[in-house]
């Protein structure tokens, strides 16, 4: 281990303020998993209010709302304040503190340098800084639950003027919405530092012989993701600064003139601003962000599938070009989230056209994965099951984007549960399942031990079923015309007619919660579980050329690459896998 040729580091330098990409990757992953659990718990509580509006929440109800100042619940049942606060924070936590840090900060940090045969990231100290900046952002977000007036409650999209005047009752600075903005500035800064590091590392630290078109698809996915983070986040940072100005200094970037809230003219504002400005800046980030959520997942799925079909991926070059194209196009579709704001025919036709165009590379990527299965010898390992389930789920998520991208059908579907169904099929049954695939696949790399297959199956099947039970009904609720973000839909004519679906969705969510227990047990017992050898999946990519777990500095000798990433079952070779770094067949 590293102790042999390096002076022993103190506990703090080794595990807390480490600059080793692997330790930082694990820190990111563990923090992100905790945040995923927090965000998921919020929604499990909200789902009770949705399914049984106004009824008191069993067990938890009294904990959430016992004293006077409680804003979450009263007499055991959820208040609209609590509902909106949890809703906003669920979205924020899941996206910015859960999925992205796990997919990019966790997997990207840990696996990418190994897959390119690098000893570390190009800027190890910057890497550490990016984790700690992220951590501070996360703490600020969590702390906001406990300030007077509670956390941010204007949705994860934080549309002004509502967000400009939200959480007014609290402290001038330490209130929910202001802390949300502050937290976002930290999270954005962290992503920027990270993305610079990723790009430079991938360009500069590839092992000899590892050309761009020999990179595993996962590395490509991280590379494109890093560019999206680098270029799409700054406009949101700008928007965040502007909203902070509005809140702290009463500027009017997003405040038009003559607003009257609750009978009072808001005369501390000069007016003259425009609420749509925020939406443009926000969605300029948030659509590329969608691909930040999905590309790393596709990368994981590509690697896991290739490994388990024991043959190369079909259309590797096509996959790469499609992903690059996807990255570019994602900058010119943002206003498809704004059709209903009063957009004219020409502009909406433009954004509808770009949206239709961007669906093509997504279809191509999916098709490549599907065709790859043909002629393989499919090994149904736990990571493979998760990776395979990604395909149909992502297909549903992507396809349901079509009617949302066509302005005419979006008139009806916009801001209904259909939208929630659509993007959750992409990010939850899609990305989250892919992330689980990644955890099961690389666990032996990180710990040198394998996870239990039985518990893995016990995790996979219930999760797969529950995911669909949660999200499929949302399409029906949306098609029936029910708006999203309602504390109670029962009083609405169409809402009352779909309560059955809503309850099914809620029970699905609680089932999904239970289905994570085998995973948690598996995770902890496997840390002390059965030891495995260096390359348990008989994989070809470079991370398996390093010892498991890899020492500080990763490789005993810098690997030299001789072939593409997925050379499985090469005719004439003696094994059914030909690792990239081994020259003789």
């Amino acid at each position, binding site marked *: 281990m590293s102790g042999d040729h*390096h002076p022993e580091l103190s506990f703090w330098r080794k595990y807390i303020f480490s*600059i*080793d990409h692997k330790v930082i990757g694990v820190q990111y992953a563990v923090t992100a998993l905790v945040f995923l659990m927090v965000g998921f718990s919020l929604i499990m509580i909200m789902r009770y209010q949705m399914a049984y509006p106004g009824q008191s929440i069993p067990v938890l109800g009294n904990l959430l709302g016992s004293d006077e100042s409680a804003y979450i619940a009263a007499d055991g049942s959820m208040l609209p304040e609590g509902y909106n606060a949890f809703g906003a924070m669920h979205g924020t936590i899941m996206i910015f503190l859960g999925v992205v840090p796990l997919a990019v900060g966790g997997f990207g940090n840990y696996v990418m340098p190994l897959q390119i045969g690098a*000893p*570390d990231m*190009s*800027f*190890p*100290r*910057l890497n550490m800084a990016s984790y700690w900046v992220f951590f501070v952002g996360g703490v600020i977000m969590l702390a906001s639950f406990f300030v007077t007036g509670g956390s941010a409650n204007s949705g994860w999209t934080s549309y002004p003027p509502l967000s400009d005047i939200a959480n007014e009752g609290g402290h001038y600075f330490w209130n929910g919405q202001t802390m949300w903005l502050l937290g976002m500035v930290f999270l954005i800064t962290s992503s*920027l530092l990270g*993305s*610079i*590091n990723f*790009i*430079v590392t991938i*360009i*500069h*630290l590839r092992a000899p012989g590892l050309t761009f078109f020999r990179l595993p698809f996962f590395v490509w996915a991280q590379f494109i993701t890093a560019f999206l983070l*680098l*270029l*799409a*986040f*700054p*406009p949101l*940072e*700008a*928007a965040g*600064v*502007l909203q902070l*100005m509005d809140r702290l*200094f*009463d*500027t*009017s*970037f997003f405040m038009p003139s003559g607003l009257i809230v609750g009978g009072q003219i808001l005369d*501390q*504002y*000069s007016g*003259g*601003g*425009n609420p749509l*400005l925020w939406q*443009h*800046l926000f969605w*300029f980030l948030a659509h590329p962000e969608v691909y930040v959520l999905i590309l790393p997942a596709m990368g994981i799925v590509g690697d896991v599938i290739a490994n388990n079909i024991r043959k190369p991926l079909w259309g590797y070059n096509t996959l790469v070009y499609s992903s690059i194209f996807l990255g570019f196009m994602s900058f010119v579709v943002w206003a498809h989230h704004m059709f209903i704001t009063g957009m004219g025919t020409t502009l909406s036709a433009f954004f509808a056209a770009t949206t239709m165009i961007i669906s093509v590379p997504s279809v191509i990527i999916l098709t490549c994965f599907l065709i790859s299965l043909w002629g393989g010898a499919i090994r149904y390992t736990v990571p493979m099951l998760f990776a395979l389930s990604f395909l149909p789920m992502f297909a549903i998520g992507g396809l349901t984007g079509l009617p949302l991208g066509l302005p005419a059908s979006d008139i009806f579907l916009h801001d209904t549960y259909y939208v929630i169904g659509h993007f959750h099929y992409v990010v939850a049954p899609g990305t989250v399942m892919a992330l689980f695939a990644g955890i099961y696949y690389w666990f032996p790399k990180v710990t040198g031990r394998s996870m239990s297959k039985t518990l893995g199956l016990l995790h996979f099947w219930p999760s797969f079923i529950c995911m669909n039970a949660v999200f499929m009904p949302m399409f029906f609720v949306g098609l029936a015309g029910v708006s999203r973000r309602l504390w109670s839909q029962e009083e609405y004519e169409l809402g009352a007619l779909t309560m059955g679906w809503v309850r099914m969705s809620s029970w699905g969510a609680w089932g999904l919660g239970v289905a994570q227990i085998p995973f948690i047990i598996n995770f902890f017992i496997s840390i002390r579980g059965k030891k495995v050898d260096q390359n348990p999946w008989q994989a070809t990519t470079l991370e398996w050329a390093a010892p498991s777990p890899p020492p*500080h*500095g990763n490789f005993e000798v810098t690997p030299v690459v001789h072939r593409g990433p997925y050379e499985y079952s090469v005719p004439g070779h003696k094994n059914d896998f030909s690792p990239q770094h081994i020259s003789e067949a």
Partner: protein
Amino acid sequence: MSAEVLPYTVKPHPVSGLYSGKMGIWLFLASEVMLFGALFSTYIFLRVGDPAWPSHEETHLSIPIGTINTLILITSSITMVMAWASCKMNNIAKAKMWLTVTAGLALAFLVLKFSLEYYPKIQHGNVPSKSTFYAIYFTMTGLHALHIIGGVAVIAYFIGPGAKLWKTDPEYYTNRIECTGLYWHFVDLVWIFLFPVFYLL
């Protein structure tokens, strides 16, 4: 530690032609372009949408002070280049001198900005909440001033404790001065856009 063994921290990469730090700073500047790009777009969006946008007689921005500040920043860019050139010519004493001049000019810019521009404006009640013009003016120039302050901090670091690196690895130190310079030129460039946008148009 790994920082030393990593390739291309000092020498340029054969394909990209850049050492890692320089590529990093270019990428950082790309994101800065997006940041200020978003703010300039905001400016256009607000201005086009507001028929009552103040003319520049009404805004009381002083063109002479703006011009002097522009000249100060342009000069500081030149002195920054001189610092780097001195490093290249192995003259650390001169490099430190030029860095000091650069930091001094930056401070002069800030002093002028705060004492002769911000302060009287705030005195006259022309605060950010007065109109969207002042809002965007204070936000953009304020963010730019923060960038200048950041730059001064970095330069001060390289005059002081950061200069130790020169003794162990002069080339590495020179590279860092070059990166600082790139950032510094960018900050100047932003001002060169800000000046006409707020003072002249």
